[in-house]
């Protein structure tokens, strides 16, 4: 670094370094230089020095976009913001070739085991960042109490599938290092030892993210892409603003999420999965003005009430319990189902307190808690209920089929979350025609208000108890709500994916679904 600062690097001296590298490395770099030159409609042939001279003309004009592309193509990795700025400043002080040193070194230093991976530049296409391979059922198989994650996995998979079904899209997935994109390999990712598909760098493309951005390494590279490259950018956003204590302890943590938001602040368009989330992100956008950042255009492309899994992936659609679930849930008592979504904001404590009021008033029912914490205050409250011989069951999770069966079997469900960008359990309950007691604000209200739901203040145990008692004892009221739920229009993933695509790619204001 010192030497470079004082002795300007020339095309000739840099060519010497490249030509001295092992033949595979030298060929790779020359190949990449030629790819880069072709995008700028310059000849890619000639000696290494001649190639470099032409690259120097492209990046020597103080054009940060050109520098971004040159670094991405030569190193075979999407650069970060500091990397782009450092290279631009070096070019400015000591000429274009001193800017390329780190990128060249990153290739030559891996000489011993370098995969000869060509870099392909994709231009003028819609690029879909397939963060999770669309064939993966990992989220649903992994199960666990994080119900939102499982449901979100379906939404991401459906979005990805719909978008990739279009003619104008290219699927890219991240390399193992999270530093570059490859062409998506289709079913079954590259096995260990296999040569990976070419690295792809988008240029003058529209890059869209169907999955939540929750990774700092990818985030810092997408930030630089959004800020410097000549690509347009769009993302579907599933997460709430990170000002929630539950998020601070969650994984990814609030800080990680804030980092992801930093990348999104340079995006062109962001589609929120609910109106409430769009309002929340609007507040975040307002906050950006202190950093002199305008922020993305934000629109709600609300996820409708959906039946999952999506059409076309129906192998797990049967609503049946497995044996363990049947013994845990089945029985004759009226069942009240509470499916946790993401953690403490699910407010299980309030549900247990409300249930206790109802039991005390002499109403019998079975309370089934799915995904309630195993320790801490909620677990203690659960223990107290058990010690009072209340009919209460706790399950870690349910299979996808068991979840549907549980909603079908339940008299009603309760989802009184304090903070939810999209209330999956409300949607699931309504799809099953089961009345749901839910919070009277934000996405819970959006999903519940059109019918089949009782809206309550989730911070008022008494209101929850009153709604629960009446749903258990007032058959006419219950049946009316069940009918409302049953009559609700069910949206389609296809319409949702099209609306999101139209907004993110074409800027069309989304219709309300």
């Amino acid at each position, binding site marked *: 670094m010192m030497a470079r600062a004082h002795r300007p690097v020339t095309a000739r001296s840099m060519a010497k370094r490249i030509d001295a590298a092992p033949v595979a490395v030298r060929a790779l770099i020359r190949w990449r230089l030629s790819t880069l030159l072709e995008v700028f409609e310059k000849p890619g042939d000639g000696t290494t020095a001649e190639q470099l001279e032409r690259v120097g003309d492209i990046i020597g004009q*103080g054009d940060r976009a050109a520098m971004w592309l040159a670094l991405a193509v030569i190193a075979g990795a999407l650069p970060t913001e*500091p990397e782009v700025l*450092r290279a631009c400043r070096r070019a400015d002080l000591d000429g274009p070739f001193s800017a390329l040193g780190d990128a060249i070194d990153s290739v030559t230093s891996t000489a011993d085991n370098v995969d000869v991976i060509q870099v392909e530049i994709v231009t003028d296409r819609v690029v879909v960042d397939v963060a999770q391979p669309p064939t993966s059922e990992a989220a649903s198989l992994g199960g666990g109490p994080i119900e939102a994650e499982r449901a979100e996995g379906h939404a991401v998979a459906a979005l990805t599938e719909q978008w990739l079904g279009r003619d104008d899209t290219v699927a890219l997935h991240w390399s193992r290092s999270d530093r570059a994109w490859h062409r998506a390999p289709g079913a079954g990712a590259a096995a260990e030892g296999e040569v990976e598909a070419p690295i792809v760098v988008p240029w003058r493309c529209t890059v869209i993210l169907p999955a939540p951005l929750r990774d700092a390494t990818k985030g810092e590279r997408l930030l630089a892409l959004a800020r410097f490259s000549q690509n347009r950018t769009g993302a579907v956003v599933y997460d*709430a603003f*990170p*000002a929630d204590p539950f998020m601070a302890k969650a994984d990814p943590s609030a800080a990680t999420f804030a980092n992801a938001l*930093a990348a999104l*602040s340079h995006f062109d368009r962001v589609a929120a999965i609910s109106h409430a989330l769009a309002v929340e992100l609007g507040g975040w956008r307002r906050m950006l003005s202190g950093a002199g950042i305008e922020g993305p255009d934000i629109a709600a492309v609300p996820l409708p009430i959906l039946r999952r899994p999506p059409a076309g992936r129906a192998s797990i659609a049967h609503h049946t319990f497995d044996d363990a679930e049947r013994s845990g849930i089945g029985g004759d008592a009226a069942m009240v189902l509470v499916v946790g979504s993401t953690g403490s904001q699910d407010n299980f404590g309030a549900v247990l307190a409300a249930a206790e009021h109802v039991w005390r008033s002499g109403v019998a029912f079975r309370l089934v808690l799915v995904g309630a914490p195993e320790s801490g205050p909620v677990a203690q409250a659960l223990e107290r209920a058990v010690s009072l011989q209340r009919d209460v069951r706790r399950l870690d999770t349910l299979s996808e089929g068991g979840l549907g069966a549980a909603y079908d079997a339940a008299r009603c469900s309760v989802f009184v979350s304090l903070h939810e960008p999209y209330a999956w359990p409300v949607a699931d309950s309504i799809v099953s025609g089961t009345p749901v007691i839910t919070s*009277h604000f934000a996405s819970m209200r959006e999903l519940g208000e059109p019918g089949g739901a009782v809206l309550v203040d989730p911070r008022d145990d008494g209101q929850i108890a009153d709604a629960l008692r009446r749903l258990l004892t007032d058959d006419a009221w219950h049946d009316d709500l069940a009918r409302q739920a049953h009559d609700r229009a069910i949206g389609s993933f296809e319409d949702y994916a099209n609306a999101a695509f139209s907004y993110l790619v074409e800027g069309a204001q989304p219709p309300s679904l």
Partner: protein
Amino acid sequence: MSATTPSPANDALVQRLRVAADVLVHDDHSLDQAHPSDLLSRLVATVADDVASERVWLLMVALAARFPTPGEVEEATRTFIGGDTTDAAIFLLDFALAGAARGSAPEATMDLVTNRVLVDVDHSAKNDVHTGIQQVVRHLVPRWSAEHDIVPVAWTDRSGAYRHLGVAEERRVLRHFGGEAEAVPDVVESAPALVVPWHCVIVAAEVVVGDAANRLSGLAQYSGSALVAIGYDAIPVVSADLVPNGDTFVQYLDTLKYARTVAGISTTAVVEFAGFVDTLAAQGLVGPTVSEVALGTSPVSAPHTERGHRGVAMVVMVGSMEPRKNHLAVLHAAERLWRRGVKFELTFICGSEWGTEIPERIDDLTRAGRPITVHHKADDALVEESYRRARFSIFVSKHEGYGLPIVESLAAGTPVITSDFGCMLELSKAGGTLVVDPHDDAAIEDAMFTLLSDDQRLEELRAQIALRPWRSWDDYAEDLWATLVVPHRSADPTKVS
């Protein structure tokens, strides 16, 4: 809870329960000599008769010698409502026993403070650091202390509860500017009395972090006291790519959800906190009212005496070495100017460092013979002197809540190059500055060249500085009191102590 064995913890417990009983059980002198377990039973019964979260909160504090978290108050309240008094008593005893590991101060007595104003100055009291927030605190609190009835407080050792300040701490907060050069050693009392607010206004004058933030949230939601705060900025969540410790800050923001008023230190800070309040609809919350109370400044009395140590013009940049402050862009612009043959020296004054790229770049340039000076630990005098000697200062930050170095520079009569947005632009409007896009290295270079080469332009800016209106710290203190404290003081005159 053995009441028969006298011990400091037992005596303290009895004292705390009696203090709580004075408030919760009206006019019952039979409790004066009551056995502690009877006292507790009576307190539990009286709270059960009239379950209000503030009564539950106070009883919990008295019993456990720490402020409960919001979740603990909610649980306790549920036990009172849903169970009988035995359930409640058992719950409270469990809570108190668990407290030993959670910041409890069992040997501390408590000082119940009713209807007064507490000012949380924990960090400024315990640390000698004197950057942005501590400067505000050390200007503000002495003025409030002289004009109003306030109780400055810090947190106990493990952030369990409030306590009074020690002698050295008082000096740090109240007499920093008083010329008391002699430091007083920090004497740690073993169990200083807790300060427990009852229907008070709590002013969070700093960014509250860690367990303290969670307990303060419990206090704000359930104790009956009103939390208000000075809003500095939301940089850790807005520019998370530029600063560390986002999680800590999120905890603080979570507490502010339950504040009544936040006084932003600039229009930009107000917009940031108002944006934050906008996000709270998604949690079914209203959030605090956000108002602007612009900070004061202290003009330097000594005249501007431009003179560099090396016989050339000196340019000063004050700010911690982190990406947000944009040192790399300034260094780049400076190197370009040096290569053009422009003569000047560059002085950096910084408290802390984050990352290695900036110091490495400074080392490179220094070794190449560039006249760069870095002061890592500069006292007020050195900072002031540097501003006075500088031809101009540069502060092209990517994100600020206020931009204190701009004001400090102007106060010393020294023009500033700063960023063309947010609070930095706000401060520029009254003159004395050149604004540039901090993301545009060439613009920074041009502005530096102008002020290094164009004496007339520099004189114009100095003339503008002389005409700037100055807002005093007295005005700040008075306006802040009117905005934060007055609206939340109880209207009931009988409660005024």
